[in-house]
């Protein structure tokens, strides 16, 4: 399979056709930033945890990068930017302890104690999802008081059951003797199964003492019970140990650690006897043995279910289980069947067909039983689930699954927004833009003005404020319009023929490809190597529990998938051959993104720069990752220049316009004349961190005490700051505007923003030349500021590529201005007169 080039102006990289990742990265940043305050006019976009925040602003929690909060273990965690990243060769992550997921713990206990079937109820908890939706992110899996209580309660219930006859004799063949030797056998046998390694002599002694102590006071059965409780809830049982010998800086995982990693990665449960034997024999250091075991386990029921769990968490098709579709009477009863349909489909594609991403997207069949066939309007009604071909225009692959279609819909109608976002996030790994604060309800559109859902969305999102972001995903979602909120095919809606045409935009805003209907969309996606990289990156991140931010841990295996050498199951199996599978780098533990910064590989797509720049997850890394970020970003410079930033500014200006960076030819003069027209200027430090890569003041002028209207075009605002990278301006400096409007009317206004050099640095000055500059904001003719009214302007300034500023000495900057407050260090001019504020000396 030869991937076709679909990217506008994308250079070929490493023989494959791909957009310049650097370019994509920068465009992502620009679009995300512009959308941060401009988008989402249906209320269907909700804020992501990260992404959409401004570049370089620390993590989603608003904490500075690298600041690990009390009571939180999180440091590195997988991000969409991370999983999309490709490198020339694979990286190695940090040593770690991975708490078993609730599911893995329950599987393990059921496998180790088959005699407990029916005697315990499980843990009754679910795990907390990571920001990309996975429940197995090692940075998030902790034993909190609630989890510890659940584990203890379950352990007592299970151990109580198996330590009582008739189960006791199944638990221990020596139980009838009820002696100390039998206690040692208990500790030795179950200790090895639960710890997944032989116990040390000290551990054997400790547990034997516990056994003897309980036995002395309460008898053999109680001793069995409490010894098992201790073993089950021991940290050696609850954590997958991937440490190796920490005396080494690059520890190799031990034989038993490898057995554990293989067992849980590919079998979702504890090592079986075969794996423990191989570990004891030291054979798991052989990659071919590991690969063989991985393949073996992936074929087991547990392995299949484990892989399916990835799909459930990735695509959330099980959300249909609790979906309400009141207009479809049969829907509620069919929800389990919709999920089962997708499970069968995945079994076929992944295992029977050994398919990859293409097969996942374009396979022209599904599995239905009689009820589902009737529900979908198929012509034949099988008794059980049977493989059934789809009509050519009835969609294809995973995206046409009823469970997925119904999960990404509203209760009373389909949702092009949700479905477009599904493709964008889950198959393109693009972060969700953060919605603005004041989102009008979708239903506010006049219902007499549209007949179809598409018309409704087009109407609601047609204007600049909404359109600037919805244009990125609604047109993708239109491809799904042949499917209603229950996932059923429809040729018409309210008597109107369905229009399922749309397009998918590249990050520079150009059209990547267009389509008519879901089948064509799926085909287009299947041809896009970016989609394959996204899916493979997500699968690797899941398998490795989010290590190293999910980036570049198995590049060779991912390339095989992209090249069509094998399918997704084999990709997963081949992770057993990755370096990260067998060794770790202690230095990576504190590198910020949790990956080795010492290896020679480098990112090929600039996404490393993206990671550092967008989520802040990589910030704090200082042993190589920062260099990578710089190189990634630097790559962006040549690839994109001003198109990204100015495009973002223009699309995101919402009634305003942004001048992407000009420089006065000479040192501007500062007026000294003053007059009072009743105007006040307020300032809000939208980004309060003094060290970051954007200058982002929010400013508000109020006609506070004036008695008459003030034409906005007569006013000029100056925000003063120092630009430590003055040599880059004007060519590589950007001023992005993302909101300008009058309060309280909400009237949008056009604001012009410029970077103005104070003349210290000129083009061609040396590196690091500092420019005492200001942002100059003026307004287009027309609007007036009436007495009592305010005009708010939001913008930020950055270099291209994004470089760090030190705002601590900036004249107008004040990090304490969390909300709008009067700022005399912002100057407002009317003509040649100062009407507010004091210019810098």
């Amino acid at each position: 399979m030869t991937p076709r080039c679909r990217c506008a102006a994308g250079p070929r990289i490493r023989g494959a056709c791909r957009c310049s990742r650097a370019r994509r990265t920068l465009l992502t940043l620009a679009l995300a930033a512009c959308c941060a305050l401009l988008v989402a006019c249906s209320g269907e976009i909700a804020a992501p945890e990260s992404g959409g925040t401004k570049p370089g602003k620390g993590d989603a929690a608003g904490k500075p990068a690298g600041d690990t909060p009390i009571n939180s273990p999180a440091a590195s965690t997988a991000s969409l930017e991370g999983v999309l990243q490709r490198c020339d060769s694979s990286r190695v992550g940090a040593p770690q302890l991975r708490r078993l997921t609730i599911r893995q713990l329950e599987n393990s206990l059921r496998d180790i104690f088959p005699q407990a079937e029916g005697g315990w109820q499980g843990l009754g908890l679910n795990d907390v999802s990571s920001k990309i939706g996975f429940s197995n992110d090692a940075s998030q899996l902790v034993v909190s008081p609630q989890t510890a209580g659940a584990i203890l309660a379950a352990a007592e219930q299970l151990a109580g059951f198996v330590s009582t006859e008739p189960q006791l004799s199944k638990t221990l063949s020596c139980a009838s003797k009820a002696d100390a030797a039998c206690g040692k056998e208990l500790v030795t046998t179950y200790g090895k199964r639960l710890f997944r390694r032989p116990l040390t002599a000290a551990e054997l002694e400790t547990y034997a003492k516990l056994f003897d102590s309980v036995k002395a006071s309460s008898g053999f059965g109680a001793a069995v019970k409490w010894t098992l409780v201790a073993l089950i809830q021991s940290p050696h049982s609850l954590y997958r140990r991937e440490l190796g010998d920490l005396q080494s800086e690059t520890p190799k995982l031990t034989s038993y650690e490898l057995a554990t990693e293989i067992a849980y990665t590919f079998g979702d449960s504890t090592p079986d006897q075969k794996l423990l034997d191989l570990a004891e024999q030291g054979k798991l250091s052989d990659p071919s043995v590991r690969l063989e075991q991985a393949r073996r386990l992936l074929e087991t029921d547990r392995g299949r279910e484990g892989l399916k769990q990835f799909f459930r968490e990735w695509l959330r098709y099980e959300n249909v289980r609790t979906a309400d579709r009141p207009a479809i009477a049969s829907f509620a009863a069919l929800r389990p069947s919709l999920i089962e349909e997708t499970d069968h489909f995945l079994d076929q594609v992944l295992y029977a067909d050994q398919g990859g991403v293409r097969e996942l997207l374009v396979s022209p069949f599904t599995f239905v039983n009689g009820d589902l066939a009737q529900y979908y309007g198929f012509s034949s009604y099988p008794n059980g689930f049977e493989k059934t071909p789809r009509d050519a225009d009835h969609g294809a692959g995973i995206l046409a699954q009823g469970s997925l279609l119904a999960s990404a819909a509203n209760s009373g109608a389909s949702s092009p927004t949700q479905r477009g976002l599904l493709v964008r996030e889950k198959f393109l790994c693009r972060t969700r833009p953060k919605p603005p604060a004041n989102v009008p309800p979708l239903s506010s559109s006049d219902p007499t003005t549209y007949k179809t859902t598409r018309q409704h969305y087009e109407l609601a999102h047609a204007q600049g404020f909404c359109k600037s972001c919805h244009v990125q995903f609604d047109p993708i979602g239109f491809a799904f319009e042949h499917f209603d909120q229950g996932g059923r095919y429809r040729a018409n809606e309210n008597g109107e023929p369905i229009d399922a045409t749309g397009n998918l935009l590249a990050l520079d805003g150009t059209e990547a490809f267009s389509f008519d209907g879901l089948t064509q969309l799926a085909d287009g996606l299947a041809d896009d190597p970016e989609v394959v990289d996204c899916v493979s990156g997500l699968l690797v991140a899941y398998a490795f529990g989010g290590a190293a931010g999910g980036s570049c841990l198995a590049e060779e295996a991912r390339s095989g998938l992209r090249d069509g050498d094998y399918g997704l199951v084999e990709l997963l199996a081949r992770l057993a051959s990755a370096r990260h599978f067998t060794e770790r780098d202690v230095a990576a533990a504190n590198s910020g993104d949790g990956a080795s910064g010492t290896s020679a590989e480098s990112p090929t797509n600039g996404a490393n720069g993206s990671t550092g720049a967008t989520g802040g997850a990589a910030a704090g890394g200082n042993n190589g990752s920062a260099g990578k970020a710089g190189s990634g970003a630097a790559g962006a410079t040549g690839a994109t220049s001003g198109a990204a930033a100015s495009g973002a500014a223009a699309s995101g200006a919402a009634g305003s316009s942004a001048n992407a960076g000009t420089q006065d030819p000479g040192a501007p003069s500062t007026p000294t004349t003053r007059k009072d027209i009743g105007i006040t200027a307020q300032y809000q430090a939208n980004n309060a961190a003094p060290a970051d890569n954007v200058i982002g003041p929010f400013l508000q002028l109020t006609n506070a005490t004036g008695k008459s209207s003030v034409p906005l075009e007569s006013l000029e605002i100056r925000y003063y700051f120092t630009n430590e990278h003055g040599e880059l301006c004007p060519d590589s400096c950007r001023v992005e505007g993302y909101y300008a409007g009058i309060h309280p009317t909400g009237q949008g206004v056009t604001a012009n923003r410029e970077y103005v050099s104070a003349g210290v640095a000129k083009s061609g000055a040396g590196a690091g030349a500092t420019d005492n500059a200001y942002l100059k904001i003026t307004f287009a003719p027309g609007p007036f500021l009436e007495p009592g009214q305010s005009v708010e302007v939001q913008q930020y300034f950055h270099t291209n590529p994004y470089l760090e500023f030190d705002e601590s000495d900036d004249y107008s900057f004040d990090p304490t201005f969390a909300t709008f407050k009067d700022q005399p260090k912002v100057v407002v001019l009317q003509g040649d007169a100062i009407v507010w504020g004091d210019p810098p000396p």
Partner: protein
Amino acid sequence: MYRSRELRRRMFLKAMGVGLTAPLAASFARRVLAAPSPRPARLMVVYFPDGVPPEHYTPTGAADSFDLQVGEAVLGPLEAYKSQLNVLLGLKIGGGEENHEAISQLLLPGREIGQSFEQIVAKSFGSPALLLGAVPLKSVGEQFNSGAKNALFRDGDWIRTQVNPIRAADALFGAPAGSSMPAPTQPAAADDSAFRRQVLALTEGELESLSNEVRKLTQEQNKLAIHLDAVRQLKASASGSMTMQVAASGCGGAMPSVDALRDLTHAGADTDFFYTESNLPKIYPAQLEVAAQALLCGSARVVGLQVSYGVSEAVWSFLPGFSSSDQYHGTLSHADGSKLEIRARFAKAKRWLMQGLVDKVVKVLDQPDPLDPSHTVLDNTIIYVCSELADGAMHNTNTKPMYIDNGKTMIQTQLPMITIGGGAGALQTGRLWSFGNRPHTDMMFTLCELLGARGSDFGAFQSIAELKV
């Protein structure tokens, strides 16, 4: 004895089912009932998402003489309890940053860090909190189309609430005859708690040793520190016997909404039922009944209730006058100042929630306290009702002006926080407060202090002295 030995074990086994840490559950009841403080204070935290339209909420009048009958009167159901009410205007969350993400610090000292304040109070009481959910998102922390963490309560990690009121009730008050709950497999040994402590001590040692082994790995050490803290909490709570005392007769009283759920044959076992949004009208009243009975009996001194979530698109057509397009978040809460009719419907929805709280909890607690008969339970309780937003359309988390009716009227949008109840005599009540954009963390700090906990355990915040008696 009010409860049998079997119940003791059942409670232990099922403690997780009510969001309790299992071994804490029984000792909690023992402490509450055996040694109440001079007045046995209780706390209930209730979260209603997406703010309120202020034109239907904000009382008019003065601090000590105010009128709740504003517009659709979201606070109207509290008219009879005005003397026990505080309306807390002018609080703000964080730096005033906007949107539903504020939920992730609504009860915390910062965003996604620390312990939520009800945990501080519960620990000072020596008893775990009963944390309930009325149709929250199923996946805790899920971001897809949610916009915010689907969680409020935190201790080491997000705490997952008990979403099934039947299980919560059974765990607290015992399953009725004919219940499908399994019988205990063996009698509880008298020295179980000693063995439990012994086992936990062994685990504690293992954790300390492992922590030392990974000392080069900060993140792994942090994980183990959380684990160690959890084990120590369990160990502390395992001290003493598991005996459960009787608070008073009448506890575990009528819970008709819980019983109605039992009659839905699938409800008891079908987890999905409790995550299906159309079932909110059945589940919410049932959870309120469980909460009220738990507080009344002293089975829980701290109760938390998360009702729905910030971006729920549940259709509220179960209320009169609502249509099938009235989705809670996208339609109702997003109605801006030009959509007065929709805003009024949103207010009605919020009033329905408040009415439920009053009918099912406030009225029930307005009776002599079994632990302190000279006062009512309500006198001894603080019910803190909160939201992550001020106005659902503005998405603001601080005080901001807003124009409605096409710019004709300016109103102040403010976080809709209230308290109900006297806090065991420690809390000033019956007042309309205006704090002028004061951090809401000060409020939680103060609530900790009012209830006898150390505010500093929550964080370095300021006490609101005027709220104290």
